[in-house]
């Protein structure tokens, strides 16, 4: 029997960016908040230090900070007629665990979505006619607009000390920035970080073709900066180890550095780590969650934590799994198209290129994701899709995130990988290669979804979440188009040689592609088409607020975290300003 604990005002499940923002906003509003995090506490002053962090094997190869798949994983198949098998060690995507979650080891490119992204079905209908959208493309408008989210984007950018160049300040276009971005109320808190040689060449080539290059916005401060929480961030060291690792300079934003230190001194906040939430107790008649069950992984004891408000911020897979296990909302059925929980899972798998410039010295080990230059001319509805046969797009970027020696040595494919001659080849190409990537939108498809696995269980005895996903014809066509545009820019850079990397036909769980997983508990205008309303409140449980990219109805052509952070602030505002006064549905179905 679980030990029943004292009631609290709010319980937060998972302490990544989403959970940390909600914890902060709710304690500020006077609530007593308990955060339950399945992983360990992670204290930057102790753990994220030099020389410890400069260890590519530990962090980038052995994935020190990632989820423990021996406890919990997901199963995967490409199509509903296949048998899903467990992902035994994560590869394609790398969710984290412990305080900070995936926000410790992210790459920190912090984007806003386009204003048109939020009303994509309407925009496509207006521009190309309703019939142009395939029946299988289950995209829908977001129930929140860019303008509504704008102040919250701004807040999240300030929390994270984002470095970037504004392209549209209150409607005024600014050269050097992204002319396609939605109007921003204020400039980025920090100037862009330094651009690397390869990306600068890319920018010049792109401009010569009439495109609009700009430095990618990145949550890595270019100079010391004090965020609105009063926390001092350091300046980026360009160490080249950002992805999959933490930041000893406190320049890269993470929940642990940018927000959790304030929570640690907050008497209304209590953090319980190694607290694995197994179930939401759901009162179907009252349409509310009464308590959450969790296991203390240090003792094996089970606890029941009653709470007035439940914040579910346990990443895309955990969020969807909890709702399915508790029977909150109707599970999605791909054969009928009915139901909503598990619907519209989307995943960005990328396509890119490498170019080699013999004789140039790029010093690729000096790197930071923000040293990159992008163009947005082929993203979303920034270009006309008439006659193209697909919808969507993505940004195109020349990257310079760092080139650690185990995983960061690009080599032309016809060079030997081992044996006689391979050392000469890798030594020759290492310092003069530069990489490119295309992000891409994922316009939800009827057959891509999540449900509970009938066979496999996690270490706590719960069915694993089952992922059914493959790339669609639409997204393949989109990717080919965008990669074709990239190739045009690369040619204009005049490299010694280059190689384009197209997407594989089928999505595969190896190797790493992106941790841009979305959907499963999507937001929308009504309960027939969504799990949560515009304030991320569950239609079927009014005291449950689901956070993170699981609420995205589909995926625009950018990284997700800027938007999930903005949504967290937007949702927190609705909770503290509306829900607390009058607990109940904030939108009437």
């Amino acid at each position, binding site marked *: 029997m679980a030990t029943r604990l004292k009631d609290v005002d709010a319980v937060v499940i998972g302490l990544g960016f989403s959970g940390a923002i909600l914890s902060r906003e709710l304690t500020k509003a006077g609530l007593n908040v308990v955060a339950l995090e399945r992983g360990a506490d992670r204290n930057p002053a102790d753990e994220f230090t030099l020389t410890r962090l400069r260890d590519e094997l530990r962090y980038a190869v052995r994935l020190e900070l990632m989820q423990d798949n*021996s406890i919990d994983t997901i199963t995967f*198949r490409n199509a509903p007629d296949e048998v899903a098998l467990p992902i*035994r060690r994560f590869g394609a995507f790398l969710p984290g665990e412990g305080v900070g979650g995936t926000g410790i080891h992210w790459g920190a490119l912090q984007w806003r979505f386009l204003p048109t992204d939020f009303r994509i079905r309407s925009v496509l209908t207006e521009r190309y006619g309703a019939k142009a959208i395939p029946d299988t493309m289950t995209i829908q408008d977001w129930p929140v607009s860019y303008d509504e989210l704008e102040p919250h984007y701004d807040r999240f950018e300030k929390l994270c000390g984002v470095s970037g160049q504004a392209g549209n300040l209150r409607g005024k276009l600014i050269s050097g920035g992204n002319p396609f971005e939605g109007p921003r109320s204020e400039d980025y808190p920090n100037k862009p970080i330094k651009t690397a040689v390869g990306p600068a060449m890319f920018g010049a080539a792109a401009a010569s073709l009439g495109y609009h290059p700009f430095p990618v916005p990145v949550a890595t401060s270019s100079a010391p900066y004090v965020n609105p929480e009063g926390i001092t961030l350091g*300046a980026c060291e360009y160490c080249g180890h950002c992805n999959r690792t933490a930041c000893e300079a406190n320049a890269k934003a993470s929940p642990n550095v940018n927000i959790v230190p304030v929570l640690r001194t907050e008497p209304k906040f209590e953090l319980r780590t190694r607290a694995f939430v197994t179930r939401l107790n759901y009162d179907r008649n009252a349409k509310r969650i009464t308590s959450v069950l969790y296991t203390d992984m240090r003792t094996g004891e089970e606890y029941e934590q009653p709470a007035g408000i439940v914040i579910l911020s346990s990443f895309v897979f955990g969020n969807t799994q909890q709702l399915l296990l508790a029977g909150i909302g109707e599970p999605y059925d791909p054969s009928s198209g009915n139901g909503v929980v598990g619907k519209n899972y989307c995943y960005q798998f990328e396509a890119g290129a490498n170019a080699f410039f013999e004789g140039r010295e790029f010093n690729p080990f000096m790197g930071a994701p923000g040293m990159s230059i992008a163009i947005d001319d082929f993203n979303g509805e920034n270009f006309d899709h008439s006659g193209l046969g697909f919808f969507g797009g993505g940004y195109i970027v020349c990257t310079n995130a760092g080139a650690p020696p185990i995983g960061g040595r690009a080599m032309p494919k016809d060079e030997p990988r081992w*044996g006689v001659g391979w*050392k000469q080849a*890798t030594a020759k190409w*290492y310092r003069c290669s530069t990489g490119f990537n295309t992000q891409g939108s994922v316009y939800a498809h009827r057959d891509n979804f999540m449900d509970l696995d009938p066979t496999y269980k996690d270490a706590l005895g719960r069915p694993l979440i089952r992922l059914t996903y493959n790339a669609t014809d639409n997204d393949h066509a989109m990717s080919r188009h965008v990669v074709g545009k990239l190739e045009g820019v690369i040619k204009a850079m005049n490299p010694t040689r280059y190689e384009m990397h197209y997407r594989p036909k089928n999505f595969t*769980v190896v190797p790493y592609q992106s941790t841009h997983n979305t959907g499963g508990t999507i937001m929308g205008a009504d309960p027939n088409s969504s799990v949560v309303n515009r304030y991320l409140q569950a239609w079927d449980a009014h005291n449950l607020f689901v956070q993170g990219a699981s609420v995205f109805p589909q995926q625009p052509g950018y990284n997700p975290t800027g938007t999930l952070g903005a949504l967290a602030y937007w949702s927190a505002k609705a909770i503290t300003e509306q829900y607390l006064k009058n607990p109940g549905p904030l939108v009437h179905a």
Partner: protein
Amino acid sequence: MTDDALQRRTFLLGVGLAGTAIATGIPQEAEAQPQPAAPSPAAAAPADTEPFVTLTATEAAFIVAAVDTLIPADELSPSGSDCGVAVFIDRQLGSAWGGGAKMYRAGPFHKGKPEQGYQLALTPREFFAAGIVAANAWSRKNFGGKDFDRLAVGDRVAALKAMEDGKAAFDNFDTRAFFNQLLSLAMAGFFADPIYGGNRDKVAWKMIGFPGLPATYADKIDAYRDKRYVAEPQSIADFS
């Protein structure tokens, strides 16, 4: 004890000593074969003895022979084993990772399709143990009864190539998967921080011009724009 086993036992105590038949595990007949290139004396690794802690004598002989074929001695570096790559593999397979930490190991087990990734119950340590048995059996069948480590250099290259291309058909084991794991572990050993046993004397970092630690470049980006930045690489151990 056969000669072979005796030699392997001796060899287990002597890894890291460059240039002798025992240390490299290459029998005399293989020694007589032309070598691709001789290691330059300047690049020689420190000749300290590092015993294996995980691998058996047969496994160690295989791994040494394999890493020396994947990473042959030449003017850029000593051989893989002389750079500590075999010791690295030994320690990795004995580490938590090698024992399957953070790996979902519940059944049922099905082959699945490649898109579904690794689907065996074997930990990396067990995978290599089984893979080496399969590789040696294949080697004996195709190379006159000889284990892989007993092959002449040219035959070792041919054998690994056949594994890489999937042309070598191991009994009950995925040849390509084995080769790819072997290659990636060897490369990780060659390029990882020397604290893990490989990349002795930071030889791999020197080879490509990777400066190692501390990697704080804010003041160097502009100064070295399109100019080569050269620094004596430093490892984690250099700061301890």
